[in-house]
């Protein structure tokens, strides 16, 4: 192993770190908003809305993210004249925009199922209690359903964040030089795959370690502190690990 190479490659790969983080952050924020919307549609009593949400989730969970990214980035090229006419081509020609769109739609689909599970786990008695004290539907959602659902969904959402960190590496296939993109470039030109892999892998593991700890911390602070509640939280975490 070439130890001098480490000193050379660490700063080169670190240059991709902000891009990876930014890509994940943008997609997670937009994806979460989309997911709440889709989850509510899915739970709505309107068959059209819930059917549409079901179809969206089904399609995006059953196809590889790579196809989704390529459909947005390369696929939009097929409609270039049309997109130019309506003034959207400036967006679709931009790889970053396409990556964020694809990642947002993808995480939106997965996260909506996580949120739906959380919302469905809210005990009915709590909603009745809220109604009994005269809360409006909005207040009920904002003050009872949403906080409990989020707490319930937190471990599974933590997993989803880690999957997104890994998924952001696919942006390298459409010319974005985040960590994996830079790693591939260095490997292809220097043929030192092991050294580059160790550094790039360490970056990803570090990000995921921080995410895991942050989720743990949030979970602890959002949870009631009784021993029973802690045991339930531990059980949820175990289940979330098994789920993916």
């Amino acid at each position, binding site marked *: 192993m070439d130890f001098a190479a480490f000193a050379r490659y660490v700063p080169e790969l670190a240059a991709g770190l902000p891009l990876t983080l930014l890509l994940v952050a943008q997609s997670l924020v937009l994806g979460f908003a989309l997911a709440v919307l889709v989850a509510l549609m899915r739970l709505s009593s309107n068959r059209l809305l819930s059917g549409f949400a079901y179809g969206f989730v089904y*399609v995006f969970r*059953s*196809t*590889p*993210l*790579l*196809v*989704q990214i*390529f*459909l947005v980035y*390369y*696929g*939009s*090229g*097929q*409609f270039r004249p049309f997109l130019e006419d309506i003034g959207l081509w400036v967006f679709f020609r931009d790889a970053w925009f396409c990556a964020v769109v694809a990642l947002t739609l993808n995480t939106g689909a997965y996260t909506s199922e996580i949120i739906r599970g959380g919302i469905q786990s809210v005990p009915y008695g709590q909603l009745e209690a809220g109604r009994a004290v005269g809360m409006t539907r909005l207040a009920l959602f904002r003050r009872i359903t949403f906080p409990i659902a989020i707490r319930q969904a937190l471990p599974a959402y933590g997993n989803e964040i*880690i999957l997104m960190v*890994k*998924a*952001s*590496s*696919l942006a*390298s*296939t459409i010319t974005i030089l985040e960590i*994996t993109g830079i*790693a*591939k470039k260095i*490997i*292809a030109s220097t*043929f030192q*795959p*092991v050294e580059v*892999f160790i550094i*790039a*892998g360490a970056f*990803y*593991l570090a990000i*995921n*370690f921080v995410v895991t700890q942050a989720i743990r911390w949030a979970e602890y602070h959002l949870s009631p502190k009784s021993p029973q509640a802690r045991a339930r939280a531990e059980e949820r975490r*175990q289940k979330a*690990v*098994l*789920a*993916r």
Partner: protein
Amino acid sequence: MDLSLLAWGDAGWGDQMARGAVVTLAVAVAAYALGIVVGTGLAAMKLSAIPPLRWIATVYTTVIRGIPELLVIYLVFFGGGAALRAIASGMFGYEGYIDLPIFLTGTICIGASAGAYSTEVIRGAVQSVPKGQIEAAIAVGMSKAQRFWRILVPQVARFALPGLGNVWQFTLKDTSLISVIGLVEIMRQAAIAAGSTREPFTFYLVAAILYLGLTSFSNRGFDRAERWANRGVRRA
């Protein structure tokens, strides 16, 4: 969109795309089988009484689950090729260029990831077999092998089935990543067709539909298997 592009034979890309789907399915099955073997071994290590075995298994699953599959593919593809060439020139004096067999490389990479995820599934399934049953088996004088085959295996298979169904789902989807090293499966074939016809949307849409078909179809298979495995179980 010109659907005649999807014609069978020389006129269109229909047969090529179908062949791509067969390759995708083949590599997914191979990687999944490898993943279950690796996962079973690692689960046994995680549950073993020997601490170093547990540590190795934990490090493996943590690292593989925390690093993008694409990075692992680049490592094995470029690193494996270099290692193979070093062995060839060092041991056999062969100085030519050797390429890794990409089907095998892809299978190993995706299988490595499937193995890490199925480890957790299998470990959880083993742990959900009630301890009393093992004690009862010991009490009636079953040997270790008998306990394994008669008590553990049938129940672990049933408990692990839903989780392993999940693992299959993303193994199938992850095979699309192997297209970056040139294996002509669905994605690569779609890219080739898109390049020569200048209709990328059409062909990536076809690719998406093929994946959708494969996952829906195999989902149904797993549902059936679950029903079959649970046929003697009383429902609450």
